[in-house]
């Protein structure tokens, strides 16, 4: 009997799952969970939806009966009923029971998702066994620091699949919120403290999403809040380790190889380098890291988190960042560039690849 009930529930849930997941993009939708966190949140969403649909059905049935049966037909005065204790007890108790069914898993999940005890387990060097990433949100760009690996990157988060990744979240200006819909719920990056949470990136989900998830800022932070996107590259463990190793290997800025790119590098070194680093080491203090780290810029799928990465878009950004991201902090920090200079810079930047 119990088994049967379980099976029924299961099939119902799958049915709901099918209906719900019919829509949305695999790299973005919460309805196509690609990780343990998103999955358990999805299950909670399905459970609550089921309960709510039940409630709606009951109310709708009564509602329809009322509408059709009790339309005024004559001028008689209906009986003035005061109430009914029996009915009132029923509609007090049943909702309480339904809510209990929802409340218990809610509380359990809440505690489960908040469990970051693995971040406290450290070896002699002060490194954690688990992978930890420090996320720093800035007006319209994201920085990702790997404290154990001692590297920094930005705009495109690189993570291994099928293992728990822990995050330290904070903001350096106003409040933002860190959200990768397909992989798990959001958490705010406050100005006052560091928030911790974890996510897990499912390899199957990553495959469906083309290895690239969309991340978003989910707290109004200024004019370009809508454009404060980032991307997440979820790699198999080995690939991830290799990526880390390559990044760690870059100790000096990579020399550009074409003449045009070298020209660009020179311009870069004369002005851009004040804010943008092109080496991944996390040795400079945070306050000095005023703009996205560009070490692997050429590898990234998007420029500024929102434009497809090609030379046209790089030029578009360099010519007038204001039209791309209104009120961003890069506008007016550098003088006017001639079209040639911009060409050169674009050539240099798109050559900044670590994965040759």
């Amino acid at each position, binding site marked *: 009997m119990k088994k049967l009930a379980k099976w029924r529930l299961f099939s119902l849930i799958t049915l709901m799952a099918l209906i719900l997941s019919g829509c949305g993009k695999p790299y973005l939708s919460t309805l196509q969970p690609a990780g343990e966190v998103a999955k358990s949140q999805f299950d909670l969403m399905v459970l609550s939806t089921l309960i709510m649909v039940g409630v709606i059905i009951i109310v709708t049935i009564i509602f329809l009966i009322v509408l059709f049966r009790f339309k005024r037909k004559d001028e008689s005065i209906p009986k003035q009923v005061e109430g009914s204790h029996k009915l009132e007890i029923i509609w007090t108790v049943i909702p309480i029971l339904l809510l209990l069914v929802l409340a218990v898993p809610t509380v359990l999940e809440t505690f489960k998702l908040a469990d970051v005890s693995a971040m406290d387990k450290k070896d002699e060097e002060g490194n954690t066994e688990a992978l930890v990433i420090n996320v720093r949100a800035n007006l319209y760009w994201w920085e990702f620091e790997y404290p154990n690996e001692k590297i920094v990157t930005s705009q495109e988060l690189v993570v291994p699949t099928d293992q728990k990744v822990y995050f330290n979240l904070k903001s350096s200006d106003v409040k933002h919120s860190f959200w990768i819909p397909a992989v798990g719920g959001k958490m705010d990056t406050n100005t006052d403290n560091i928030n911790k949470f974890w996510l897990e990136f499912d390899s199957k989900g990553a495959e469906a999403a083309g290895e690239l998830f969309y991340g*978003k800022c989910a707290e109004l932070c200024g004019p370009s809040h*809508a454009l404060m996107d980032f991307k997440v590259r979820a790699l198999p463990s080995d690939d991830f380790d290799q990526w880390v190793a390559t990044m760690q290997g870059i100790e000096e800025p990579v020399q550009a190889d074409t003449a045009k790119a070298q020209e660009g590098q020179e311009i870069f070194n004369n002005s851009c380098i004040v804010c943008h680093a092109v080496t991944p080491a996390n040795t400079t203090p945070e306050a000095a890291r005023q703009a996205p780290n560009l070490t692997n810029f050429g590898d990234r799928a998007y420029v500024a988190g929102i434009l497809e990465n090609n030379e046209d878009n790089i030029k578009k950004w360099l010519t007038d960042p204001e039209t791309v991201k209104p009120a961003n902090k890069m506008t007016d920090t550098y003088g006017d560039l001639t079209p040639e200079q911009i060409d050169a810079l674009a050539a240099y930047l798109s050559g900044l690849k670590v994965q040759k």
Partner: protein
Amino acid sequence: MSTNAQKKGFGATLWDFLTTVDHKKIAILYMIAGGFFFLVGGLEAMFIRIQLAVPNNDFVGAGLYNEILTMHGTTMIFLAAMPLLFGFMNAVMPLQIGARDVAFPFVNALGFWLFFFGGVFLNLSWFLGGAPDAGWTSYASLSLASEGHGVDFYLLGLQISGAGTLMGGINFLVTIINMRAPGMTYMRMPLFTWTTFVASALILFAFPALTVGIFLLMFDRLFGSNFFVTAAGGNTVIWEHLFWIFGHPEVYILVLPAFGIFSEIIPVFSRKRLFGYSSMVFATVLIGFLGFMVWAHHMFTVGLGPIANAIFAVATMAIAVPTGIKIFNWLFTMWGGSIKFTTPMHYAVAFIPTFLLGGVTGVMLAAAAADYQYHDTYFVVAHFHYVIVGGVVFAVLAGTQFYWPKMFGTMLNEALGKITFWLFFIGFHLTFFIQHFLGLWGMPRRVFTFIEGQGFETANLVSTIGAFFMAVATVVLLINIIITSIKNEKVGNDPWGDGRTLEWAIPSPPPFYNFKQLPLVRGLDPLWIEKMEGKKGMTPAEPLGDIHMPNNSFTPFVISFGLFVAAFGAMYRLDYNWGLPVLILGMAITFGSMFYRSVKDDHGFHIHKEELTDDNDKGVKA
């Protein structure tokens, strides 16, 4: 010193309204000002929807969008929904309990003018360098970083209008506690009066938290304090708490009176007393009480920790129980009744499933772990428009149609009313139902645009089309009001024919002293009781006697105007050297007129009983 409406010139009428302390006229002022701000907020909503109709739209720019968004939320909540509800409370509640006026007529006028000047001040920001752009929640780190004076307009404007709201709330409470007619016990009060009572109590306890929050942010922005400046030891989470300690009760301040309006309409058009009256009262009080225990459900993703999140999640879910009791009681009021589908009843019937949908998505949001996904997405936008528009706006539209005859003595056109209803109803669901899915597919809220290829295009377009239906519906309502006012066909005491409560026992509109003799209340639905016994009206509880009435006064207007002036001074103090003098001038106007008010005795006047006898049911010359 007469306050009754005779044939007067425009100037005299205007002066009458500027100085009135009559709750019925103040009600009309609230309706006019609230209605105007509803149009403004609605227009802003239309701009939002037009901007979001297609991806990468540049109808309004990024910064401007944030201003429109902020002003839409702020205007709708503080300057449209609440004042419109205050309008109904003023118009109806004193009549329902058989009172001649509210407890403090002067304060009532003062409350209105404070709200009005606060609202005007806030909206002047559009013309004076830009509106606030940090969202209606104005979270501290962003609102401190916001440049220009937009956020200052928000802070000062809300502070002024908030003071008015607080006064209004206390006034209603005292009126209900002290001024009920003989026999009108608490458990015989109509439900709209009850919800007014509980909503006012919520105002009393919720607004001080907002007042403090606004003071702190104002001090930070204008006077250099450090409450929210992290570098100096400040903490922005304090703002979030204070805002939501106010903000959550606020949504029940909005929805409880709406519940009250429907609780009046449903029995009238079902010809049946409210099912489970005492449990309705109990549920109202319980919702009010629980409303203070749940605010952190807006802060699940802030990082308060699993214990806090779990407690607030469960507490939030608990509110579904009393609300459910109400839903079922309404259904069972209609069950076995004889339902007439007038326009108000259309709204009441449509309200039930609509609000239900908004309510259950609320409970889904309350599941903290799942809210990490919903929070700050269009799912939340869909939730709260379902409860606010489906609850509050439907109630305001229903109440307008229902109480129009009582307020103005003439009926709004029913055919046009139904057109408005259907357009609004269809447009509403078209706009907001699909937004649930937008949220689930990963669309954050408060975005000025969205990039192509994320699957948001069609749904957003549908949503925008829906909004246009609502706009047309609103225009039809305006036309209806104009036509009705021109025709001005007078109606009697009880134009709907099935009125149950005291307000339907007196003329429409009521004379300025409301009840010539206070009525004797013999039970719930007093007028219905008398009707069922074959009587025409209420039995008086007192012999005909002199009636004491308050004098009109221009002082409330001046006091509020002073604060309005002072607000400019406070804001421009640092930019211009005329700022400080203007601040002082404004304060001097306010305190001077308060001083004037307190040293000048004002005993009001008496209408003598001889004047009342000769002249039945019509307004009286005093």
